[in-house]
């Protein structure tokens, strides 16, 4: 633990001002065109509207913010505390007074109240941090390595309680539909289903990236194969969901093998661009092969899954039984048509699928195949020297990961009742990869947390509208800077042959 003691000298004001001025100049250069001048098309001609109040506010904010942060870093939190406290008070006061008050509009020229509040949070955070530093006598700044090791410590600490945490999480997921939530019940279950889909995809990709160490930027391609295979079999042949699920998994797995073969010799980033290209190729084919895939319009009216033959419709098609009839018969009381049942059923379906993925990963890690994956991730040459066949090992990793993406894909098609190439763009692959990395490579619980943060939180903040993706992008950068190794960072081998001699896990 390196504790640097600050010498209590006066703040180096010229230096701090120089730094703040530089930051302000950079902000002005960044903002002067893109922010300051808005291009507007009017009657075929492009004209521009200036928008310099925003630029002015940004430059001022950065200038004073930079001074505050420099003062805090130099060990003088009190001026920063007072300054940022005043700014926060003015902003929050203006926002509290009236939503449409001219003061708030002048200070924060944004279109969304949530964003105005978000802008007020920045000085508030500086203020709180300054207060914290003012209370603490010793000022300690952490470098990347130390931050990572803190993540490692948290990972180790959490790991001890992992079995309990996992049981709590699973129990919570199971009772979620029965919790009293009033009117927002349906929304919560929908978000839960979405998050669980991404958790399943994250666990699937974790096999490829986290365990086998193969950087896959085109994972969404397998998801697309699964979704389209269910949609096409269901629409063209009328096959049921339960028949299509294994077929979709197998088809996706064979696409995984197909991709695996040409890229076996490639390493790291060459692999990344080829997988990315593969994802784009699948998408382009889906758009242009319109007589099979429906082109950009996609496939409509995909059959919803049934509960082993008992449908969730009001009246069962072709004289079958609905689930309500079945339950009425079993329990003797009358159950009438209730659309909520189908949503809950889909929720439990994806929960079961996700748990199967998790169980599979946990078990296979302990088998020779899973250990070969992890060994390959750590050192390919050593593996070859020890007689592990890298070809088979990589191919099985690709195939297993792809299979789970296929399952998730057919669930997606069944839930939406509609598939189109729009749903399978690169950004989806990036989000799934981000979930795996943010969770901490190889950490199953970490992926749950990361999916909750990346998918669940933005869904709850739907009212942010256009600013949602902006916040999503900046959030990804901030989480990486704050915790470079992922939320639950630990990268120990699953099995240690000689635990007493083993030191810290893995490479730094």
């Amino acid at each position: 633990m390196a504790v640097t003691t600050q010498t209590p000298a006066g703040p180096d004001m010229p230096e701090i001002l120089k730094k703040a001025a530089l930051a302000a100049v950079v902000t002005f250069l960044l903002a002067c065109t893109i922010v300051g001048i808005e291009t507007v098309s009017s009657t075929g001609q492009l004209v521009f509207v200036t928008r310099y109040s925003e630029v002015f506010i940004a430059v001022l904010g950065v200038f004073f913010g930079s001074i505050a942060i420099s003062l805090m870093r130099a060990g003088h939190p009190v001026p920063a505390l007072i300054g940022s406290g005043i700014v926060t008070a003015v902003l929050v006061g203006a926002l509290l007074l009236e939503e449409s008050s001219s003061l708030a509009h002048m200070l924060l020229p944004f279109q969304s109240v949530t964003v105005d509040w978000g802008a007020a949070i920045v000085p508030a955070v500086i203020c709180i941090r300054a207060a914290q530093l003012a209370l603490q006598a010793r000022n300690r700044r952490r470098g990347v390595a130390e931050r990572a090791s803190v993540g490692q410590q948290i990972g180790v600490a959490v790991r001890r309680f992992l079995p309990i945490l996992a049981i709590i999480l699973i129990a919570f997921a199971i009772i979620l539909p029965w919790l009293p939530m009033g009117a927002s019940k349906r929304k919560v279950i929908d978000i839960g289903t979405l998050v669980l889909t991404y958790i399943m995809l994250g666990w699937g990709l974790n096999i490829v990236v986290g365990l086998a160490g193969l950087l896959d930027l085109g994972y969404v391609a397998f998801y697309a194969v699964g979704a389209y295979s269910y949609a096409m079999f269901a629409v063209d042949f009328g096959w049921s969901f339960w028949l299509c699920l294994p077929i979709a998994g197998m088809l996706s797995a064979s696409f995984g093998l197909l991709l695996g073969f040409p890229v076996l010799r490639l390493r790291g980033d060459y692999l990344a661009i080829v997988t990315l290209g593969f994802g784009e190729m699948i998408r382009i084919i889906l758009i242009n092969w319109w007589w099979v895939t429906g082109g950009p319009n996609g496939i409509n009216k995909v059959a919803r899954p049934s509960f082993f033959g008992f449908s969730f419709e009001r009246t069962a098609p072709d004289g079958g039984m609905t689930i309500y009839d079945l339950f009425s018969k079993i329990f003797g009381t009358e159950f009438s048509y209730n659309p909520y049942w189908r949503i809950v059923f889909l929720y439990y379906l994806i929960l079961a699928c996700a748990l199967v993925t998790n169980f599979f990963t946990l078990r296979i890690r302990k088998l020779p195949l899973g250990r070969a994956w992890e060994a390959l991730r750590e050192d390919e040459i050593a593996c070859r020297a020890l007689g592990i066949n890298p070809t088979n090992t990589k191919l099985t990793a690709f195939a297993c990961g792809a299979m789970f993406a296929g399952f998730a894909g057919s669930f997606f098609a069944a839930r939406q009742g509609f598939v189109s190439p729009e749903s399978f763009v690169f950004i989806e692959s990036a989000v799934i990869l981000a979930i795996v990395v943010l969770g901490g490579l190889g950490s199953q619980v970490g992926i749950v947390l990361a999916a909750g943060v990346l998918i669940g939180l933005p869904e709850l903040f739907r009212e942010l509208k256009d600013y949602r993706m902006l916040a999503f992008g900046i959030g990804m950068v901030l989480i990486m800077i704050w915790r470079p190794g992922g939320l639950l960072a630990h990268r120990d081998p699953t099995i240690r042959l000689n635990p007493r001699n083993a030191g810290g896990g893995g490479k730094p």
Partner: protein
Amino acid sequence: MEYFLQQLINGLTLGGVYGLIAIGYTMVYGIIGMINFAHGDIYMIGAFNALICFLVLGYLGITWVPLAILIVLIVAVALTAVYGWTVERVAYRPLRGSTRLAPLISAIGMSIFLQNFVLLLQGARGKPLTPPPISGGFTLMEADGFTVELSYLQITIMLITVGLMTGFTLLITKTSLGRQQRACEQDMKMASLLGVNINRTIATTFIIGAALAAVAGLMVTLYYGVIDFYIGFVAGIKAFTAAVLGGIGSMPGAMLGGLLIGLIEVFWSAYFTVEYKDVAAFTVLVMVLIFRPTGLLGRPEIEKV
């Protein structure tokens, strides 16, 4: 034959643009070994900066085309270079020395941020630059009712590309900055022990990469006449493919890869179906990588045991 010649000219023009963006990828990869996913969006920002500069110049009444292009070149490149520097400072420098995947995710986040930043501030619709500042051209050949035309715009683009490439090569091979960059590429730790300022070298690399991307953005604004917030993603993937095809980390490779990707795209669109031009480019990439796993001009990786 005439048709072929025309496509060759078009392909070389497009390939030059891809090559300029690809250099940014390849330089950053060569030095810090990361895929800078936000680079395509830097190029998009460059295109927007150029468009806005043209508008402001038109408003100020500067209409003499060579002067206007010179001013736009200087202003847009300078402003975009600041973006390159800031992105490195904000999103990558705090992550130096951590795992290999962390900067990649940070770069993807930055790319999403930049796209939505421009989307929010400038709107989603395509922005047309009318009237085009450079029009007209030479007629090289005329046969069977088909004319082969070399427009002034294409000449401008080719001249700027060749000029920049020459200047860039001189910068890398002759100046002390280039020497420092190459030293960092070889062994960063050793270079820093010998007195190379690592942070400054990396920052300069990002600035140069962003400046070249901005020039590419300016040329695309002129060439297509319409830009929107999404052009960065597509061009970024193409340029990255070009960098990998040429052998990532190799500067001549990036240029060669760019030209090849441009030619493949134009010829495939001309002789086959335009819809599958990207598929063709990626297929060629996979084919090349199967036989040369480190790209056309890439050095084979040494297996250290």
